[in-house]
């Protein structure tokens, strides 16, 4: 095995990690504020990608390719954000302070509905759809390693977004409200924070991030499928859990581990592509065995 192979897989792994990170951050964010694992998050991403395709197909004849691409991206992100808020309003909010398993199942049901809606109502939605080529297929070569322009775009976008999110959460009034909510809902309410609006806004942000992840996923692979959300959810969930649910920095570390592991298994082990999910989940079980609350979850005393 050559050093170039390893570096090449590193680049591929980082690209995967970037997409997973955008999903994982949302999963972690929602878990922090409402204590429910949103199993429909990947489906929101798929919805964003499909909305972008629809917008592109409508806008392309009038605006030409570059204009249509811009419209498609904006529309896809907006659609995913709105869907995120809808999810909160119609699936999570009506549940109230129910037990965790009910929230989990409601999310699964919501994901089901989104997936089947794409399957039934998108024109020939049951077949894989080609994602419009919005970026030229340029390839850079650097010391024997090939980096696609697409990969660079995915990486840079993801890093920028995550930094922006971190600033939003750490430095703004809204971010303080989110952190306070994650800590204690009742106290947050008594302090005069508009909890309901904050939650809706959190879902708007998380949904938009998922939409971006879906569009980047489409851009990178060039093809999208109605059930691509399932694997995105699962990978994002794994990343969030490895890092520690509720901690967005943990989600980044988790996404990095998942992306690199996946690239390493499929690129370096012969016939490894078929076993990449097995390896990822094996690693998950192993990490949870050592640290049951994820890597970045501080060991806290149990409330009695």
């Amino acid at each position, binding site marked *: 095995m050559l050093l170039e192979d390893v570096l090449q897989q590193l680049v591929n792994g980082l690209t995967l990690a970037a997409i997973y990170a955008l999903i994982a951050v949302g999963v972690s964010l929602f*878990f922090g504020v409402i204590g429910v*694992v949103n199993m429909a998050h990947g489906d929101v991403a798929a919805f964003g990608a499909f909305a972008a395709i629809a917008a592109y197909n409508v806008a392309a004849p009038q605006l030409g390719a570059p204009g249509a691409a811009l419209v498609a991206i904006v529309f896809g992100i907006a659609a995913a954000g709105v869907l995120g808020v809808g999810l909160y309003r*119609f*699936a999570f909010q*009506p*549940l109230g302070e*129910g*037990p*965790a*398993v*009910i929230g*989990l*199942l*409601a999310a*699964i*049901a*919501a994901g*089901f*509905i989104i997936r*089947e*809606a794409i*399957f*039934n109502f998108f024109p020939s939605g049951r077949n894989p759809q080609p994602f419009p080529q919005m970026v030229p297929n340029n390839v850079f070569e650097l010391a024997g390693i090939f980096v696609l322009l697409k990969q660079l775009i995915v990486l840079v976008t993801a890093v920028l977004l995550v930094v922006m999110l971190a600033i939003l959460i750490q430095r703004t009034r809204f971010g303080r409200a989110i952190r306070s909510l994650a800590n204690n809902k009742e106290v947050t309410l008594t302090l005069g924070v508009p909890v309901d609006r904050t939650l809706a806004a959190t879902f708007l942000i998380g949904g938009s991030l998922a939409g971006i992840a879906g569009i980047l996923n489409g851009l990178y692979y060039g093809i999208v499928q109605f059930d691509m959300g*399932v694997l995105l959810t*699962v990978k994002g*969930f*794994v990343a969030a*859990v490895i890092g520690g*649910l509720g901690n967005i920095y943990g989600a980044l570390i988790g996404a990095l581990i998942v992306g690199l592991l996946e690239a390493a298994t499929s690129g370096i082990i012969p016939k490894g592509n*078929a*076993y990449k*999910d*097995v390896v*990822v*989940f*094996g690693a*998950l*079980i192993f990490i*949870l*065995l050592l640290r*049951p*609350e*994820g890597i970045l979850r501080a060991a806290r005393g*149990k409330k*009695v």
Partner: protein
Amino acid sequence: MSVDTDVPRPAPLVVMRGHAGPIITILAVLTFWSLLTAFMLTRNDLVAFAIPVAALVAGEGCRRFAKPVYAGVTRALAANSGLALGLSILGLLVLPSALVSNVYWVHVLTIVFIYAIAAQGLNVHLGEIGAINVGYGGFFAIGAYVSAIATADYGAPFFMSLIYASSACWLTGLLIGACTIKTTGDYLSLVTLGFGLIVYQLAVNLTWLTHGTDGIHLPPVNILGHSFKTGIDIGYIHLPKEANAYYLALGVLGLCTLVCYRMTNSWIGRTWAAMRQDPLGAGCFGINVPLLRVLSFGFGSLFAGVAGALYANEIGFIEPGEFTVLLSITLICMVILGGMGNWWGIICGAFIMIALPEKLRQFQELRYLLYGVALLAILIYRPTGLFANPKRRFEKLLG
């Protein structure tokens, strides 16, 4: 466990004299069975679908607006539960002869029973020890594959393959339980989800063992020289060949339900309740929580092996595509829908999840969409399931 002071007061007592209770019970059970048979035998799907909807509306209507009637019937059923149970079992035993004109439904009911067996096992995880298992389909798949490989490739008889399958699932359950001693709540749900996916991937990729996506054909079942390809002839009774598997599945379901019921009402069940509600407190009272958790996880998984083996032999052909996450979710829905910790509710849940969609076939494409909407609606309006266990009214479900 705290006692709430705002407990709804019991409905006004309806005084029943003489034989009123048993008669009401018999009438109620008879109505239920005739509705059920009508539902299965009706060829018109819309009419068939109107039956459960009307029953549900009538039940809810009585509960809301005609409280004495509702209270009277439920009281009569509760007081004569033995009679109701006996009549129901009798109904299940004679049902195949009522369905001779529509043999397909005997097969559907067999599948319902098989899923109900798995749901009873899942209830041990989900409802009794409070482990959110989203990968129960993985155990089901292991059971089905072990049984299929044993019978098709190694020529094992059916009952031996049943034992192999349940032991394999029991051991896997112990292993998973041991790996997740410290993992609880949402973390456990992810680990089990991953387990289900791993089993699916292995079933696809380990072609030398599972024949991959080509699947495995199973030889017909033969018990004590009686082949399941021939019908049942006892005296004047002639039943179609589908009835063989029906009675087998019914018998196994009865046995499994009895085992689960007895476990829940033994000291082990009390320990489960203590562990589920407060693991730390249970530990303080001298319960070995980790050990019991692992053992119970294995115990719950065992039923998936039984169900998987029965399923593989009933269908006669298995391939990995049947054991996706969807299977696990369907099983969870049965338990939640029926009501956690309620053994007969779970069987009803299995019937609703398997038999109702059969009548939705004309909405083939939209079926899963409706499925999702219905599930979400039930979770929002009736989070404790259709038949909640009354003993758990004070309990926070999980977590």
